[in-house]
């Protein structure tokens, strides 16, 4: 028996179980026009998963995604376990993120250890769409991955799921050369986190740090004194054209009625900083050493 057939059998059983009232009699297949007109039912989609035809399987996956109930997860998991070609596997993982059902977390957890980094990266993206307490830990584990893309995606995803308890880990990741962590810290961190990020000015490229500060400055839950400190520290530590442009952009984004001290300080700084001011090259902070990636697909830092 071919594996596809095995898979088909198991999927058929799943479909049968999911379709009450459908007995052993083969239902009449609707005509092509009718098929095009209406979306596939769960049972039909599961049956198409058995077809062995990549296009039909893709259609079935799309149909299951549209259905989006908990019942579509087992057939999709079965499909993953059957051993898919690269593109199809990544497509299914993406769909699991769109479906965003907690029932797929176990499978996504396993896929966090898939040997292809692109699969792990998409898994992180998918997890970020699911609301479940298990998600944060799984995404945090992505920060420990040997692949830079997975680490970056994980840092972003933690911000997406608003994982404030992960700020400390993001700080660690930032220190370990995960630049995307800075923006996430800006999105999630508190005043202390902002101060720690400010300490990195001069040691890390501003291009890495400024998105984090922007997120701090854009947040309503960050008080004006904290924002003022950010602006002042930025200006004092790196009075450069890059900071000037950063502040200009931020000020422009503020509503006209904003009369905060941080805005006032930013406007002063904008006037004070000369356009030709440049920053010295950043001094890396130890430990900046990245361990060599060992995995088959690890890209390292």
């Amino acid at each position, binding site marked *: 028996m071919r*594996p*596809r057939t*095995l898979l088909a059998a198991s999927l058929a059983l799943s479909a049968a179980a999911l379709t009450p009232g459908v007995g052993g009699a083969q239902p009449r297949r609707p005509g092509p026009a009718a098929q095009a007109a209406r979306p596939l039912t769960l049972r039909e989609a599961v049956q198409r998963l058995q077809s062995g035809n990549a296009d039909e399987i893709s259609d079935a996956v799309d149909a299951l995604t549209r259905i989006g109930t908990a019942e579509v997860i087992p057939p999709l998991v079965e499909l993953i376990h059957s051993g898919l070609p690269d593109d199809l596997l990544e497509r299914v993982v993406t769909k699991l993120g769109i479906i965003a059902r907690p029932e797929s977390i176990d499978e996504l957890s396993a896929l966090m250890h898939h040997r292809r980094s692109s699969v792990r990266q998409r898994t992180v993206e998918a997890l970020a769409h699911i609301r479940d307490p298990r998600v944060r830990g799984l995404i945090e584990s992505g920060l420990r991955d040997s692949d830079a893309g997975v*680490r970056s995606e994980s840092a972003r995803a933690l911000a997406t799921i608003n994982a404030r308890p992960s700020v400390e880990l993001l700080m660690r990741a930032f220190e370990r050369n995960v630049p995307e962590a800075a923006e996430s810290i800006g999105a999630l961190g508190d005043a202390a986190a902002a101060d720690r990020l400010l300490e990195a000015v001069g040691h890390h490229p501003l291009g890495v740090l400024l998105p984090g500060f922007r997120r701090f400055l854009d947040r309503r839950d960050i008080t004006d004194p904290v924002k003022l400190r950010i602006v002042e520290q930025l200006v004092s530590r790196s009075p450069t054209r890059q900071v000037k442009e950063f502040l200009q952009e931020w000020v422009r984004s503020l509503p006209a009625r904003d009369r905060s001290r941080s805005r006032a300080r930013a406007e002063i700084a904008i006037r004070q900083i000369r356009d030709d001011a440049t920053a010295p090259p950043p001094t890396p902070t130890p430990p900046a050493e990245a361990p060599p990636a060992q995995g088959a697909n690890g890209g390292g830092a």
Partner: protein
Amino acid sequence: MKRSLLSAAALALVVGCMPPIRVTTAFSSRFGDNNRARIAEVLQRVGDRRPSPNAVGGPILAAVIQGDERGVAVFDVANRRELWRRAMAASSTPEILGDALVVEVGTSTQVLDLRTGAPRGHVDHPGLDFAGAARDGDTIVMSFATGLGGGQRRAGRVVAVSASSASERWTHEVNGLVGRPAAAGGLAFIPWDRQSIAVLDLSNGVEKSRIRSTDDVLSWVFADASGIYYGGRGIYRLTPDSASGTRAGSAYLANPVEGVPGDPLVYRDAFFATTGTRTARDRIRFAFAPAGGEAGHVSVANDTIYLAYYHDLLAVNAADGAVRWATKLEEDVEDLEVTRSGLFAISGTGKVRSVDPATGAVALVAELNAPLGAIAADFEGLQPGADAAAPEGDVRAQLVALVRDPDNRLVPFRSFVTTLLSRREEPEVTRDLLDLYTQRSIPAQLKQSIAAALRTRRSGAQFLVSALDDHYDYLENRQAPPLQVIAPTLQAMGAREAVPGLLSHLLDHETPVASLPDIVNAVAALGEASVVPTLRRWVQLYRSDSAFRGEDASAGLRAATDAIFRYGDAADREWLQAQQRDDDVNPQLRENIAGLFNRESAEAQARASAVTASEAQATLEAALNRLHEQQQAVPNALPDEAIDEVWNAHLDEFRECAQGAVTRNPSLNQIRVVVTLRSGLQRSLLDPTPPARTGGGDGQPSHATTPAEAMEWVTRQSEALAAQRTSVRLTTYAPGDRELRACMDNVVRALQFPASREMRQEFRRVIDTRAARAAAGGGENFSGLGVNAQGRELPWWLVSAPTLEVENPPAPTRPGVTRPTTPTTPTTPTTPTTPTQPGTTPGQRPWWEE
């Protein structure tokens, strides 16, 4: 008389004018070596010697001083002062010889006063290198050679000079290499061509004895208070048993430490010319002090041999090579001296350190503050320094410390120490090796040695299992454990408890793809069938994934399919076959699965073929045995019973012929018949075995005879042998009655007898026609012996041959003289004959021949 006187005078004149005889008998190829009596004489002369103190009277160090002011200096080590220094371009290691110091300067070897450095004389040796010198009494013997460092020309010279003036006493030019000598008991011991030790009388240079090894290389010799020692890698002590010329037959101590990088000998190589400078050869060396002890045995002080390798120092048990201690000194060891009071290491900066032979504790004895080159030391009486510091930890920790040494000059030695470490039985050694392997500072070459050492471990599995808990972590800067080393080692250890940890690494994407086959193999070997479901799921997940495309990348998956094939059940095999048929599956994987089934099928066929072949062989052997029995049954000559069996079947026909003859000649008493048989047996039918090769006719190549062809041959042979017959070639009858002949020939010529080996055989029969006894009539039960059951004699035609037991049957009673006048039915039995037996007495002959 006058002429005699004149001759004597002339001879005296000639002799008087000749220079003194310088060349004496030695190094002859005709000299008898390994002579036990001569060696015993040598030993008697050497006797027990006391160590002779040097002329300074205390521990001294002589060295070539390196630097701008090159020279030779002698130091009083006990008082830490320089006794003298003399500028000279010394080119050898100095030799401290009593009150003299000998050192080579270019092509001249200087003899200096040890106390003052004043020159006493010199020996020039252009074209030859100074190999070394030794002294006994007031004679110094020196060896010079060319070709010590290799090269085609190999020549040597041994010179004996006066210790006080360096004036020559005798010399030998030797065709071959001679090495650094030893001297004791008025004898010089000269290593010769790395095979022999020539023992010369110091007084005249005459060779007194010679030791030659037949199974070893003799590279050095030295004299000690406890005797003469010589050897190569091991240590021999000169005893009468040295005459055996073998390791096993001599007093010998093997060096238990083998494989040291640089391959140092256990003692200074006598055939290596020194340079006067510091060399790696000085820094990589063994040292030991003979302990004398029981005659016929070699023992060393403290049962310890020391090994210096740059700044590392090891003490090992001389018996088994077990490390007693290991330490690292602050400086490289340029010279290592073992005395009765301890071990001393000398550095190139002139620091003399004592090392406790028992613990390895090191203490500074003296700082001579001089840039020392080649060093010679006489430290007898030197006391160890105070405040000695022993190496930290136990021996295991000491060895680990040496492996950790960051000095990359010592990588080969650190690898060697790793091997020593791995031989230890403590389970913790496994952990040590694992820790060392994971050290980032460890060079790749050393890492390989550590990995190899780890694989030899059979204890400490718990440390390896524990190491499996670690996984790669970018944030924590943590590496995965060395799975390619751990997994095979755990497999070899049979550590089933490692299966969960190994599986966790199998499923971890951070595990290097190169380690996957090792992990899969270990998991499969340890977990057997229990891990098949996990392996199957793993293969299923990646069966179409590009992560495992390619020969190398797919190795892990292939190993997993191997394991599933081996440990799985029928369903697993069916699943494998399904994978093999699926076009979406990794091609390498499909190929591997196909190979698994094909190999199994081929092996099964081979096994079946082997069984068939075995059965065919058994059948062939049985047929051959039957053929052999058939061949053995063919007699050399046909026995009487075989002839009778054929003959007696035609008695009626013979009777008719006889009756006819009697009718024609009533006075006929007997008919004599001589039959010559000819056997047509082909010799080839007696071949015991089938031909090795078959075919080859018509220009076709022959081939090895197959079992089937052999069987056919056996069958053919058997059938042909069974069909073989012996036929009648000649017949002779007496009387020569033509009708009788015709009648008899009609019967006899047609007879067919069994086959026999002899080509020609003759038998005779006599038909007695004189008896007139009437036949008793038919219907009686005859025994065939000429007498019926009732004891009545039988008519002749009913009687066959004599019994088998009677080789020459006794003559039957002669019939009466009365002859019937009318033909009567012959009633006397036919008396068969046996072939003539040469050498039988007339009385034993058949009656018809008497």
